[in-house]
């Protein structure tokens, strides 16, 4: 594996820094974009990017907060949080740029998937409903797919992703803990019903005894059995849709 920080052109052709991890593989392979969670472009996001490369994918994790300033990731994330987080149009544009970057790699097979956690999970649903350049999507406990309550529509987030379901262009895998307060099982049910009604290709996996962020092995939320099972579903999904 080779890994390091690169830059690509994202929304508005802005330069976006990203962590890229690539298998030492010359044969064509698929690529995966990892959309990080609310705490930012942090160590756990980098480690999961490397995990994707370990399992045979060119993996890239853009710094989604790069427009909020330069500095240590936690400092930049603090500014991002104080300003309400990343705008949806920037998330779509930056992901599109990352997808182009992956497809232009010498060992790309032309297929690109995305995976997002927490706020990144919401962005996965959003991006998959705007772009037609993504071949497989994985939403890990994305809250705010449905607007209402504390999830409000705003200038920077003008549409709830569930309202874009008719435009979903990508097979969608959802990973959820049944103890999660955001999204709740009821919200996941609502999202699933919308996907069924629209005739979309999807699979949802829900795990008992798990809440929000149950992949995070440095947090009390970590659930090893459920995490292992869920990662298995993720790589099965990518095997189906990102293989040559």
């Amino acid at each position, binding site marked *: 594996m080779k890994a390091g920080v690169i830059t690509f052109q994202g929304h508005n052709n802005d330069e976006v820094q990203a962590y890229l991890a690539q298998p030492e593989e010359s044969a064509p392979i698929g690529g995966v974009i990892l959309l990080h969670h609310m705490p930012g472009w942090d160590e756990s996001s980098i480690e999961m990017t490397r995990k994707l490369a370990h399992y045979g994918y060119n993996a890239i994790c853009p710094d989604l907060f790069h427009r909020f300033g330069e500095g240590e*990731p*936690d*400092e930049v994330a*603090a500014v991002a949080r104080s300003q*309400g987080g990343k705008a949806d149009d920037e998330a779509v544009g930056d992901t599109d740029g990352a997808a182009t970057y992956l497809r232009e790699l010498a060992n790309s097979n032309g297929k690109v998937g995305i995976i997002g956690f927490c706020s990144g999970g919401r962005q996965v649903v959003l991006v998959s409903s705007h772009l037609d350049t993504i071949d497989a999507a994985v939403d890990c406990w994305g809250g705010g797919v449905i607007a209402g309550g504390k999830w409000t529509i705003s200038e920077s987030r003008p549409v709830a992703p569930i309202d874009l379901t008719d435009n979903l262009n990508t097979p969608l895998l959802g990973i959820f803990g049944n103890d999660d307060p955001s999204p709740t099982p009821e919200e996941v049910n609502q999202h699933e019903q919308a996907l069924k009604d629209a005739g979309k290709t999807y699979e949802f996996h829900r795990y008992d005894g798990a*809440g929000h962020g149950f992949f995070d092995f440095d947090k009390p939320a970590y659930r090893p059995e459920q995490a292992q099972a869920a990662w298995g579903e993720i790589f099965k999904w990518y095997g189906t849709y990102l293989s040559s």
Partner: protein
Amino acid sequence: MRSEPMCNWIVEKAEMKGSGKGPEGWFDVNQANVYFDHPYHAPMDHSLIIDFVETPNQVGNRVAVELSEESARRLVTSILAALESGTNSHMAVVT
């Protein structure tokens, strides 16, 4: 366990007047950003996070803490107690 949604970008902001000591020394604190959500460093799923900042919309001087909910409530009690006892003791000296 709280049943309210997290990862919601809700930040309570308070105007501040004072000083904070950051990585580059003392700086003027003019705002506190307070939220209960996922921490960056603390080994908790959620924490009460306070960012004391000098320039709210820029990366720069910041004093950050990430506290458990219980710790944060104890801190509120201690702050109020310190204000009362400190105020009383200084009034006693003056008078």
